[in-house]
């Protein structure tokens, strides 16, 4: 069964690209979640929509305007957060709303547009081409390299931005750099696997991992493991149950999260019972 499904080229490509996307989303995602930017992926896709509208309005190739507008929007959001006391999740919401409104108004101004371009936002992991796969592998390698390089600094900023600044880190620059990396991660991945998958891979494996790993390093490793496992499980499950792969992968991550929560809860319960028993048995001796 498994071998048979691996013979289809599109399944091979889905697995390879899916694993690459899972890795970068979970690594970049941990920092997004810790910065309270959990819905950054979702917001950025809306900005990309605005960017596509800009492209159609100005007759520039929309893929580029989408990328540029998204990154500018993300940088603007960072600036907004750095120069006001706005909470990070609210700044993400502003990014989302602005992108959307921009797109809609531009579309209104230009009196409609050719929708083909939206295919940009509507990837499906089964439709990944060979070139796409090569591209995402290269990009993933680059992104992971940058993240490895900035690892300690970004962790410091996630822990406490002010203390990081006081320690002499160029926090503002690093924030901009990170948000560009995150934007590239999201935009590159959206094209391949669609927005649904991105948002979930950013958040869910990381909150699951944060329940398990004590250290930062372990958290990253567990999160990557969970997201890669979900992608593989999800793709196989979607094949055998004939379900949409994106949705199936997301549901897999959610089940993993619930499983981990349940296990923790059970462990806690067992301990409490133990305690109670210990208490009771020790009582006579006092």
């Amino acid at each position, binding site marked *: 069964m498994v071998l048979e499904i691996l013979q289809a080229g599109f399944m091979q490509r889905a697995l390879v690209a899916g694993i690459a996307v899972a890795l970068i989303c979970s690594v970049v995602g941990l920092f997004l979640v810790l910065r309270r930017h959990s819905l950054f992926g*979702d917001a950025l*896709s*809306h900005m990309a*929509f605005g960017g596509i509208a800009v492209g159609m309005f100005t007759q520039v190739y929309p893929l580029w305007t989408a990328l540029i507008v998204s990154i500018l929007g993300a940088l603007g959001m960072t600036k907004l957060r750095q120069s006001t006391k706005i909470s990070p999740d609210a700044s993400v919401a502003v990014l989302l709303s602005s992108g*959307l409104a921009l*797109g*809609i108004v531009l*579309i*209104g101004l230009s*009196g*409609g*547009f*050719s*929708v*083909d371009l*939206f*295919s940009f*936002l*509507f*990837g*499906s992991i*089964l*439709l990944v081409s060979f070139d796409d796969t090569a591209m995402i592998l290269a990009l993933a390698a680059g992104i992971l390299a940058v993240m490895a390089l900035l690892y300690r600094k970004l962790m410091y900023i996630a822990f406490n931005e002010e203390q990081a600044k006081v320690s002499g880190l160029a926090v503002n620059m690093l924030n901009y750099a990170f948000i560009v990396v995150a934007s590239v991660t999201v935009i590159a991945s959206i094209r391949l696997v*669609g*927005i*649904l998958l991105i*948002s979930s891979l950013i958040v869910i494996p990381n909150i699951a991992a944060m329940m398990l790993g004590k250290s930062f390093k372990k958290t990253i490793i567990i999160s990557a493991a969970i997201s890669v496992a979900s992608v593989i499980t999800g793709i196989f499950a979607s094949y055998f149950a*004939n379900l*949409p*792969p*994106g*949705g199936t992968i997301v549901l897999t991550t959610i089940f993993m999260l619930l499983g981990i929560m349940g296990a923790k809860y059970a462990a806690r319960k067992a301990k409490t019972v133990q305690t109670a028993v210990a208490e009771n048995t020790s009582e006579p001796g006092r």
Partner: protein
Amino acid sequence: MASSKVLMIGMGAGAAVAIAIAVAAFATMGGSATTTPAAAPDNNNAEGAQKVKVIASFFPLYDFTRQVGGDRADVSVMVPPGVEPHDWEPTPQQIQRASSANMLVYNGAGFEKWVDAVGANFTVNTSEGMSLLNNEDPEEQKEHGLYDPHIWLDPVLAKHQVDKIREGLVKIDPPNADYYNANAAKFASELDALDSHIKSELSSCEKKDFIAFHEAFSYFSNRYNLTQHAVHDSLTPEGEILPQRLEELVKLAKDLDIHVVYSEELVDPRLAQVIASEIPNGRVLTLSPIEGLDEQEQAAGLGYLDKMREDVANLKVGLVCS
């Protein structure tokens, strides 16, 4: 506004994404859509294996092809039930399925932009050789081609389409030529009957002007000497309606003393309702461009002819015919 994008979205990944980008969805852009394999009619069943496999692009052509092909052709449809076909796009799986069919029937006139991508074994362009109406709006030309594709709404032109389908079937399945010819002739006479039905029903009407939902009825209007206006000033039911346009429509209705605003099955009904609510004694009726039937209608066995008759009945109300 609203809706059209979603309407066009197939199921599965496309819809997913569209909703994810919530506004993209309701903001009306047409949809790049995909359909899960499960959604497309399954034509791999055993008994279908011996018949010629024909795939039609969207509902009217599916219905026409079924009429001509009868039980000797295994006919399926590309655009799934309940989905708006304007700017619809197939998924690779659907393309693959279509390319394995013996014949692909499509409307032409720029309605199906995806036809070339399919690389079908044999294609029938049902509008071939017809004198088509031009797409007047230069902006729209870029997106929707040079011509108005809504030929099927004119029974006379539909007869031409049926003939093209007959030709095609005869060509790929010569042994059954007589069968197909007979079926086509029978259906053509039904179309003739429809034509005269429309003529007589609309013969004594007080009005010539009506407000359709989108500009689907130009061929129809020309044939039966009516004047079409449309809520969506466009060949597709897409795009957000802006405040000024709403006002124009209300004024138009008032000026022409129109009391009925027509809506369609696959769009948000509220748009027509709002306009109707602004005009004296306004009401909303359906005037179907027969671009897609939902599953219930298909299950009920409704076809092109039934839908056309429904349209005529509703038009009679708006045009105040005796």
